[in-house]
C-alpha cells in the first residue's frame, strides 16, 4: 500500500508530465474505442445480414411434362429413385441448413372451387340424360336425370347436347350416360348446354343406359377423378412459411393474419393459410373455418387409388396470401416434421427446396453438379445477401485496417509512454531496488501511477468515443442504407435488394470495456517490462563490469570514407538495427499508401467507369394504351433521340416475354408439342413460364438496358459469336417499292437463324453447350392481351456472364428503318417467330405508313411492341438537356412499374442515386483515409523525432568537439533522409513487383511522408542544438 501511495504521489507531484501522459492515453483510448465500435458495428451488421437474408434453392425435375404442375411424371419418379443417394448426400452437405420436400398431399373441401373457373376441368361433368327430341340429326334436347359428377348439380334441368365426335348415333327417347363439358345457359335459365361432348379421362363420350356395371365403371372412376381434380387443392406442410420459394422470392406475400402461437402448434391446432383469391371467392376471412379432408398421396395424386385420408375437420384460416396467382388454391399447414418427410415423387416438377447457408451457393452448386446432369434443375435465390454484404465486407476490411492502425498506434503510444515514464524515473527504480525494496514493491510503485493515469485516460477516451460514436455511426448508417435498396454500386453481382435492412448498431458497454482492457493490459505489460528491465540492466551491468566482460566482440573494417557526410554514411553502415527498422517502416508506409490510394482510386475509377458507361435506359412502353386500343405507340421520338447527338451506342430492345428452357434437343429431334389438357394446365404453365427468365430481343446484349446498371455497365461475353456478330447474323436488306407511292425503298430485315445467347449459369445448370439446339417454352401477351404460350427451338450461339440472379435469354433483333421521302419510319421486325418449325409467330408487328397515320388519326400513337431503347449520353453533363428533349417529345418521367401511366422513358433515378451514393462513399472513404494518412504522418513525425532525440548525446559530444552545427544537421538529416528514401523506394518497388499500378497519389503521399520525416528530424535537430543540449554530456548513462 505504501508503494502504491508513493506511486500516486509521484504522479500528482509531476502535473505537467501526468497531464501529457493522460492526454496520450485519452487520445489512444478514444481511437481504440471508435475503431472497436466501427469494427463491432460492421461485424454486427454482417451478422444481421446473415440472419435477415435467406438463401433458398428449389430443386426441380425437367421432365417430359415440365412445367405442368398437375401431371405426375413417371420419369421424375424414376430419376428420384435413381438419385436418392445423391439427393440425400446433398441434403446432408455442409452448405444446407434445412430441406423440405414438396408435399404430396391433397386437401378436398366441398367449398373449394365452387365459384371460379381455374380448376383443372371446370365444366367437366358426367350426367345421365334422357333425350326427348332433336333439332336436327346432330342436336338433341334432353333432361338430366342423374348427376354422377359436376361442380354444379344439373339434375332435372333441360339440356341441349350434340352428337359425340366419335359419331355414335343418338336416339330420341333413350337414356344415355354422357361424359363431356357442360355449362349453364345464361340465356335460358334452367337449361344446360354441352359445348364439347367428347371423351373425358379416356371415358367414352356416351353409352346407352343399362349397358351394365362394367361399361358404367369407367364413368364412375372418371367422376371420382374429376372430384379429386376439381374439388381439391395442394397442401404444403412447412416448418417456415417464409422460406417457401414463392414467398421467399416475394412472388407471394402474407397480407393479413394473426400470430400462430407455440401453444397452438404444440396442441396440433388445425390452422391454415390460404390465398387471397380463394378467400375472396369463398368470402372467407382470417378466423373463419374451412372443412378439410386431407389425403396423403403416393404417386399420381389424381388417381384416387393413390390417396389415403389422413385428417379431416375444420381448419381455421390464420393467414391470407396475396399475389398468389400461380397458386390460387394452395393451403399451407404448419408442421415442423415436414422437413423430415419422406422424399416422394409428386405431381408437378418441384421436388422440394433447400435452405442454404448464406454465401455458400457456389459450394452447394458444386455439390449438386451430378444432379444437374440427370435432368434436375436448381433455382437459387439469396434475396440480395451477396449484394448487401459485399460492400459491407469491404467496409469491414477498412475497419480492420483502421483497428489495426489504432492498435499499432496504441501499442506505440503505450510502449513509448511507459518507456518515457520509467526512464524518467530510472534512478528512482534503481535506488529503491538498491535500498532493498523488492521487485514487487518497485513494480507496484510504478504500476499504481501508470494504471491511475490509464484509467483516467480510458474514461476520458470513452467519453470522447461516445460523443464521436454517434457521428461515425451516422455516416455508416447512411452508407449502409444505400445497400438496403437496389443500389448496386461496388457489388459484382446484381441481386436486387428490395428489403430494408437498417444499420442500427446498439451501444455496447463491452466495446468500451474492451478498449479500456487493451489499455490497462498494455500499460501494465509495458510498465512491468520496463520496470523490471531498469532493475535488471543495473544488475547485469555491474556483473559485466566485475567480470571484466565486454558486451560486444565486433571489429570494424578501416573506413576509407571521408568528407562532410562521413559520419552519416558510417552511421548508416553501422547502425543496422536502426537502419533496418527505418527501412521497414518506409517499406510499410509506402505499401500502406499504395494500398489505400489503390483502394480509393479503385472507387474513383469505378465511379468514372460507371459514369463513362452510364447509359440511361429508356423503355417506351404503352401498356395501358395498348390494352385499350390494340395499337402501339409512336416510335419516332425514340428513334429521333437515337439519331440525336445527345446519345450514342444505342441499343434497341424488345421485351418478347418470358422463356423457360426445357431441354437440349438431340440431333434431328423435334420438340414434342403437347396439347394442353385444360385451361388450368395452360394458365398454370403460363404463369410458371412467366415466373422464369426474361426473353428479350436486342440489338446488343452488352448494352441491353436489362443489365445496364451493373458494375461493368454491361455483361461479359464469354464465348460464341461476339456481340457485334450476334446481331449482324440476322440482318439483311431488302429493296422494294413503297406500296403507296411506288418509290424505291430499302428495308433491313431481321430474318436470321433462330439463335440465342444464354447466361453461363443457366448453361451450367442445365448442361447446355454452345451450339446445342434447345427446346424452350415461351410466354407472352399479344396485342389483344391474350396470353400466348409456345414451344420455340433456338441454337445457342453465345454465352455471357450474367450478374448473379439474372437469367435473361437474348435473341437478336433490330429495328428496321425505311426511308421514305423526308420522313423516317421505324418498323419492328416482321417476324418474331424464329423457327420455321414453329407455328407461333406474332401476327402483326409490322406497321405500314398508312397504319401509323391511321393510329395517329384516332388520337393514339402508333407504337413499337414492348420496345425500348438504351443509350449512352454523349456527355453526362447534358442530362438535363436530354430530359428537356424527352419532355418535349411527350415522354413523362413515370416508372414503368405503374401500369396505369403511359410511358416510362428514362430511368435516371438509379443513375443519380448510384453516382451520388458512390460519391458519398468515396467521400466517406476519403475522409477515413485522410485520417489514416494523418495518423501515419503523426506516427512518422513522432518516430523521426524520437530517433533523433535518442541520439542527443552524440549530438552533444559532436558539438562539444566543436563540430559546426551545419555539419551535425547535415549528417543526421542525410542519414534520416537516405534511410527513409530507400525504405519508401523499396515499398514502391514492391508495389510494382506485386503487379499493382503505381499511382500518383501513392507517390505524392510517399513524398509527403518523407517530407514529414525529414521535417521532424530537422526540427528536432535544430531545436536540439541550443546550449542546453550540453546537459546530455553530464547525464548518467
Amino acid at each position, binding site marked *: 500500500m505504501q508503494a502504491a501511495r508513493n506511486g500516486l504521489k509521484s504522479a500528482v507531484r509531476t502535473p505537467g508530465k501526468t497531464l501529457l501522459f493522460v492526454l496520450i492515453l485519452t487520445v489512444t483510448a478514444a481511437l481504440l474505442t471508435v475503431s472497436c465500435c466501427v469494427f463491432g458495428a460492421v461485424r454486427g451488421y454482417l451478422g444481421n445480414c446473415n440472419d435477415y437474408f435467406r438463401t433458398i434453392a428449389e430443386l426441380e425435375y425437367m421432365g417430359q411434362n415440365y412445367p405442368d404442375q398437375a401431371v405426375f411424371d413417371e420419369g421424375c419418379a424414376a430419376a428420384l429413385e435413381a438419385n436418392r443417394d445423391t439427393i440425400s448426400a446433398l441434403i446432408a452437405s455442409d452448405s444446407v441448413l434445412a430441406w423440405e420436400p414438396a408435399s404430396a398431399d391433397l386437401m378436398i373441401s366441398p367449398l373449394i372451387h365452387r365459384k371460379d373457373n381455374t380448376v383443372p376441368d371446370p365444366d367437366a361433368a358426367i350426367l345421365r340424360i334422357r333425350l326427348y327430341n332433336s333439332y336436327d340429326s346432330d342436336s338433341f334436347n334432353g333432361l338430366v336425370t342423374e348427376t354422377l359428377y359436376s361442380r354444379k348439380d344439373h339434375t332435372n334441368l333441360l339440356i341441349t347436347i350434340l352428337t359425340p365426335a366419335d359419331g355414335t348415333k343418338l336416339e330420341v327417347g333413350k337414356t344415355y350416360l354422357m361424359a363431356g363439358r357442360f355449362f349453364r345457359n345464361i340465356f335460358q335459365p334452367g337449361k344446360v348446354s354441352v359445348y364439347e361432348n367428347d371423351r373425358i379421362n379416356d371415358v367414352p363420350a356416351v353409352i346407352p343406359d343399362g349397358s351394365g356395371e362394367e361399361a358404367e365403371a369407367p364413368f364412375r372412376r372418371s367422376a371420382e377423378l374429376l372430384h379429386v381434380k376439381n374439388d381439391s387443392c395442394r397442401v404444403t406442410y412447412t416448418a417456415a412459411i417464409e422460406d417457401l420459394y414463392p414467398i421467399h422470392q416475394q412472388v407471394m406475400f402474407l397480407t393479413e393474419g394473426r400470430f400462430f402461437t407455440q401453444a397452438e402448434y404444440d396442441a396440433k391446432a388445425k390452422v391454415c393459410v390460404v390465398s387471397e383469391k380463394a378467400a375472396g371467392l369463398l368470402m372467407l376471412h382470417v378466423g373463419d373455418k374451412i372443412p378439410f379432408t386431407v389425403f396423403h398421396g403416393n404417386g399420381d395424386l389424381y388417381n384416387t387409388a393413390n390417396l389415403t385420408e389422413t385428417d379431416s375437420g375444420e381448419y381455421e384460416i390464420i393467414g391470407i396470401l396475396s399475389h398468389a396467382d400461380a397458386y390460387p388454391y394452395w393451403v399451407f399447414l404448419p408442421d415442423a416434421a415436414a422437413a423430415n418427410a419422406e422424399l416422394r415423387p409428386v405431381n408437378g416438377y418441384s421436388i422440394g427446396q433447400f435452405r442454404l447457408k448464406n454465401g455458400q451457393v457456389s459450394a452447394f452448386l458444386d455439390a449438386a453438379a451430378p444432379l444437374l446432369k440427370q435432368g434436375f434443375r436448381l433455382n437459387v435465390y439469396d434475396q440480395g445477401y451477396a449484394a448487401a454484404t459485399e460492400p459491407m465486407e469491404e467496409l469491414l476490411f477498412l475497419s480492420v485496417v483502421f483497428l489495426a492502425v489504432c492498435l499499432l498506434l496504441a501499442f506505440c503510444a503505450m510502449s513509448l509512454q511507459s518507456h518515457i515514464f520509467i526512464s524518467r524515473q530510472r534512478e528512482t527504480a534503481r535506488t529503491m531496488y538498491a535500498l532493498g525494496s523488492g521487485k514487487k514493491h518497485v513494480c507496484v510503485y510504478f504500476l499504481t501511477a501508470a494504471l491511475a493515469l490509464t484509467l483516467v485516460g480510458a474514461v476520458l477516451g470513452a467519453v470522447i468515443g461516445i460523443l464521436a460514436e454517434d457521428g461515425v455511426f451516422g455516416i455508416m448508417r447512411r452508407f449502409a442504407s444505400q445497400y438496403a435498396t437496389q443500389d448496386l454500386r461496388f457489388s459484382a453481382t446484381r441481386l436486387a435488394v428490395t428489403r430494408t435492412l437498417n444499420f442500427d448498431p446498439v451501444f455496447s458497454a463491452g466495446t468500451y470495456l474492451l478498449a479500456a482492457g487493451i489499455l490497462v493490459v498494455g500499460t501494465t505489460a509495458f510498465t512491468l517490462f520496463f520496470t523490471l528491465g531498469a532493475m535488471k540492466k543495473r544488475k547485469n551491468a555491474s556483473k559485466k563490469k566485475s567480470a571484466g566482460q565486454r558486451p*560486444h566482440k565486433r571489429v570494424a573494417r578501416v573506413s576509407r570514407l*571521408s568528407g562532410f557526410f562521413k*559520419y552519416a554514411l558510417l552511421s548508416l553502415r553501422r547502425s543496422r538495427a536502426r537502419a533496418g527498422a527505418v527501412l521497414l517502416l518506409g517499406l510499410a508506409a509506402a505499401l500502406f499508401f499504395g494500398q489505400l490510394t489503390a483502394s480509393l482510386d479503385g472507387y474513383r475509377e469505378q465511379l468514372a467507369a460507371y459514369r463513362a458507361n452510364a447509359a440511361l435506359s429508356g423503355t417506351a412502353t404503352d401498356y395501358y394504351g395498348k390494352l385499350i386500343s390494340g395499337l402501339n405507340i409512336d416510335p419516332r421520338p425514340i428513334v429521333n433521340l437515337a439519331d440525336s447527338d445527345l446519345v450514342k451506342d444505342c441499343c434497341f430492345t424488345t421485351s418478347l416475354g418470358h422463356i423457360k428452357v426445357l431441354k437440349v434437343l438431340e440431333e434431328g429431334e423435334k420438340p414434342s408439342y403437347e396439347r394442353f389438357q385444360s385451361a388450368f394446365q395452360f394458365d398454370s404453365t403460363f404463369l410458371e413460364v412467366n415466373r422464369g427468365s426474361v426473353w428479350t430481343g436486342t440489338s446488343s446484349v452488352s448494352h441491353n438496358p436489362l443489365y445496364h446498371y451493373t458494375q461493368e455497365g454491361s455483361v461479359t461475353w464469354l464465348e460464341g459469336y461476339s456481340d457485334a456478330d450476334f446481331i449482324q447474323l440476322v440482318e439483311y436488306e431488302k429493296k422494294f417499292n413503297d406500296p403507296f407511292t411506288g418509290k424505291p425503298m430499302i428495308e433491313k430485315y431481321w430474318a436470321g437463324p433462330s439463335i440465342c445467347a444464354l447466361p453461363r449459369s443457366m448453361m451450367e445448370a442445365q448442361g447446355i453447350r454452345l451450339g446445342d439446339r434447345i427446346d424452350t417454352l415461351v410466354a407472352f401477351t399479344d396485342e389483344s392481351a391474350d396470353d400466348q404460350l409456345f414451344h420455340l427451338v433456338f441454337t445457342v450461339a453465345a454465352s455471357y456472364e450474367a450478374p448473379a440472379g439474372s437469367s435473361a435469354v437474348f435473341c437478336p433483333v433490330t429495328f428496321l428503318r425505311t426511308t421514305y421521302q423526308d420522313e423516317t419510319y421505324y418498323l419492328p421486325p416482321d417476324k418474331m417467330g424464329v423457327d420455321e418449325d414453329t407455328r407461333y409467330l406474332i401476327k402483326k408487328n409490322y406497321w405500314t405508313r398508312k397504319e401509323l397515320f391511321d393510329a395517329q388519326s384516332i388520337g393514339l400513337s402508333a407504337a413499337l411492341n414492348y420496345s425500348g431503347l438504351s443509350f449512352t449520353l454523349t456527355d453526362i453533363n447534358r442530362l438535363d438537356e436530354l430530359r428537356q428533349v424527352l419532355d418535349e417529345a411527350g415522354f413523362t418521367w413515370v416508372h414503368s412499374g405503374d401500369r396505369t401511366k403511359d410511358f416510362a422513358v428514362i430511368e435516371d433515378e438509379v443513375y443519380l442515386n448510384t453516382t451520388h451514393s458512390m460519391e458519398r462513399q468515396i467521400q466517406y472513404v476519403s475522409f477515413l483515409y485522410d485520417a489514416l494518412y494523418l495518423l501515419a504522418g503523426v506516427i512518422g513525425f513522432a518516430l523521426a523525432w524520437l530517433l533523433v532525440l535518442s541520439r542527443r548525446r552524440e549530438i552533444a559530444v559532436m558539438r562539444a568537439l566543436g563540430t559546426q552545427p551545419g555539419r551535425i544537421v547535415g549528417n543526421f538529416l542525410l542519414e534520416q533522409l537516405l534511410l527513409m528514401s530507400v525504405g519508401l523506394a523499396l515499398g514502391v518497388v514492391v508495389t510494382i513487383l506485386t503487379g499493382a499500378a503505381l499511382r500518383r497519389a501513392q507517390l505524392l503521399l510517399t513524398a509527403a511522408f518523407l517530407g514529414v520525416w525529414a521535417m521532424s528530424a530537422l526540427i528536432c535537430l535544430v531545436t536540439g542544438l541550443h546550449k542546453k543540449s550540453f546537459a546530455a554530456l553530464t547525464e548518467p548513462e
Partner: protein
Amino acid sequence: MSILEVHGVTYRYENKYQTVNALNGVDCAFEEGQLYALVGKSGSGKSTLLSLMAGLMLPTEGEILFEGKATASINLNRYRRENAAVIYQSFRLLPLLTVSENVTYPMELRGFKGKQAREKAAELIARVGLPETVLNRFPDMLSGGEQQRVAVARAMSMDTKLLLADEPTGNLDTENSRLIIDLLLKLAHEDGYCVVVVTHDLDIAARADRVFRMRDGKLAPEES
C-alpha cells in the same frame, strides 16, 4: 603567461521558480605546462566553471579570456574545435565510430584527412598506452580505463593547449585512475598542455601543480 584567465565570472541558472548563482565572481588564471585541480563539494560550481572554460556556455557576468580574447567575442564552435579539449567522466566517445575514427574525428574537423589522420591517431593511441589492436574496435568493446584513454587521445588529437577534464577518473578503478592521472601529468609537464582537472579525488589534487578549491561558487584561497 596565462593561457586562460577568468575574471569576475558569475553564472546563474535560472528557472521560473528560483535563481541559483552557481559561480559568484570567480577570478583565476591558468598557464601552460601546469596541471590544475579544481576541487570542491558537489554543487560548489567547479563543473560549471569547467563548462564555461570549455566554451560550452558563456558567463552571466565577467569574462573568460583565452590568450587574451574573451570567449564571448569569439566563435565558440571554433574555440571548442581548436582551443579547448574536454575529457568527460563518462568518456563520451561516439559509439558508431571506431577508436581510430573517434581520435581522427577532431582532426578531420580541422581539415586533416585519410592516411595522415589515421597515422596520427595510431601514434596518439600508442602514446596513451593502448595497443594498436584497439584501433578498429568500437568504444563499447573497451573497458572504462581504455575508453578514457581513448578520450585522452581524442583530446590530444585536437592539438590544443588547453585540456579540460571533468572527473576523468570518476568511473574508473584505482589502477586506471592512476594511469589517467599519470597521463595527464605527462601531458602537462612534458608536452606543455595547460590541464585543468575537476575532481573530488584528494590524491589527484595532491599531485596537481596547483589546486583551486571552490566553495559556494567562489574560489577559496589558493594552495600549492
